[in-house]
């Protein structure tokens, strides 16, 4: 069993349920092989640094897994088959600190890359 960190970025128009469905597939692949999900983190919608397939935004989901190496191949294959997933990456966990909240979750008031949750609803 090895620890991996996997992240996928999907179409910004997907609903929360659809994102959860993808995460559930990843989870089922790990658990059926005796692995487990250590952490799931949703970054929500983020502005992309460059357009990907004509989209300016994307929804990021990060997961930390513990599973046999063969499962990573399967997860990767599933990612590639799903055309709503625009970008994905699976790497070995390098540091214990990754189990905690990622730098993305750090509260920072004026981040220009992040879209404020209540944008456009100003009174």
């Amino acid at each position: 069993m090895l620890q991996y960190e996997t992240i996928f970025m999907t179409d910004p128009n997907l609903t929360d349920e659809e994102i959860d469905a993808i995460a559930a597939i990843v989870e089922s692949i790990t658990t059926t092989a005796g692995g487990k999900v250590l952490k799931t983190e949703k970054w929500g919608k983020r502005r992309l640094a460059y357009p990907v397939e004509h989209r300016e935004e994307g929804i990021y989901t990060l997961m930390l897994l513990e599973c046999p190496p063969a499962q990573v191949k399967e997860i990767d294959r599933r990612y590639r088959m799903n055309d709503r997933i625009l970008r994905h990456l699976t790497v070995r966990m390098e540091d214990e600190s990754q189990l905690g909240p990622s730098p993305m979750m750090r509260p920072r008031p004026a981040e220009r890359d992040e879209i404020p949750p209540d944008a456009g609803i100003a009174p």
Partner: protein
Amino acid sequence: MGRRDGGSSRGDAKGRKPFKRKFLFRKKKFCKFCEEKLHFIDYKDVRLLQGFVPERSKIFPRRISGTCSKHQRKVMRAIKRARSLALIPFTSD
């Protein structure tokens, strides 16, 4: 055939400043990551990485930033991962 020794002595012909003077006021560089004992550089830490890709989004070279080779490699890998995920740009014009 013609002579092909052009250029070999051209550099010395120009007047050069004394070598020593150039380095008189140079600041001592240090590796930022060694200083902070940071062993892991996260590709998700966009704010940290953005400090290493100024303006044109080129990776800040070691000779300027002073980062040691070990950490420069880690920074490089983190930047490339972040780029592929569209977290930081490849170019910016």
